[in-house]
């Protein structure tokens, strides 16, 4: 299985920027991008989208509750229940994964998002060292883990 190319990873960085910029008009600052080793620097709310087809693996979006509450309030959403926070992080994961298909190809199949409250164990890894992107949006930290490998 071939690893993602750096240009492929770039599309996730651009998608993170675009998501927050469009939905909140506050652009995030990308603080680091590295190959993950051991426990990932995740947060309490996690959205996971799985890939199959030309690529296998998954993308995890991880944010603290405070960031999701702020994002919803900016969108004039007043229901800040745990269910809605999970829905929000799942929707972010869904959007980043869906946008990735433009670059990674239409043969990429994308699952509906699953959501997890509580620190994610990093899911079952496809690659020993997945790509990790950390960012800061509106003072809050966030993380995206891109664990994908090209089939064949």
């Amino acid at each position: 299985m071939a690893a993602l190319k750096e240009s492929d990873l770039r599309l996730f960085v651009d998608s993170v920027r675009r998501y927050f910029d469009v939905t909140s008009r506050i652009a995030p600052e990308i603080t680091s991008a590295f190959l993950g080793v051991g426990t990932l620097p995740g947060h309490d709310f996690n959205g996971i989208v799985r890939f199959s087809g030309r690529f296998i693996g998954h993308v995890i979006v991880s944010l603290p509750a405070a960031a999701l509450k702020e994002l919803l309030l900016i969108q004039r959403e007043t229901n800040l229940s745990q269910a809605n926070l999970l829905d929000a992080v799942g929707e972010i994961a869904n959007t980043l994964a869906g946008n990735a298909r433009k670059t990674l190809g239409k043969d990429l199949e994308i699952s509906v998002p699953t959501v997890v409250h509580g620190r994610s164990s990093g899911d079952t890894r496809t690659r020993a060292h997945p790509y990790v992107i950390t960012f800061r949006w509106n003072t809050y930290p966030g993380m995206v883990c891109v664990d994908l490998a090209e089939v064949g």
Partner: protein
Amino acid sequence: MSSMKLLVVDDSNIVRSRIARVVQSGALGEVTLIGLARNGEEALRAARHAAPDVVTMDLTMPEMDGLECIPALLALHPKTRILVISALDDKSTAIRALRLGAHGFLPKPFSDDSLQLALTGLLDHQS
């Protein structure tokens, strides 16, 4: 002129609520929200109950996805206009949705302004 009837279809509660808020803000004129559906099957049930003039349709959804729902919904109500709102923003997906009968495509993420613009275009065409 009678009020336009809008059905919102998306598996995300926050997206459904957001679209509903834009519609209920009055920015689009006389539009009545007739339902919020979480997948294609719920959309078809709602459409059998009341014919929508305009539908916002997500693509990636459990049970029945948007690409399956579009032709089924148009078979029920051929004059309904459908705006696809999806993160699957690659050209081939957009073309496939349009060939199935959708009338517009708004990629996610979207701003309230872009949603208003896209819906206004569809509503103007419908009236």
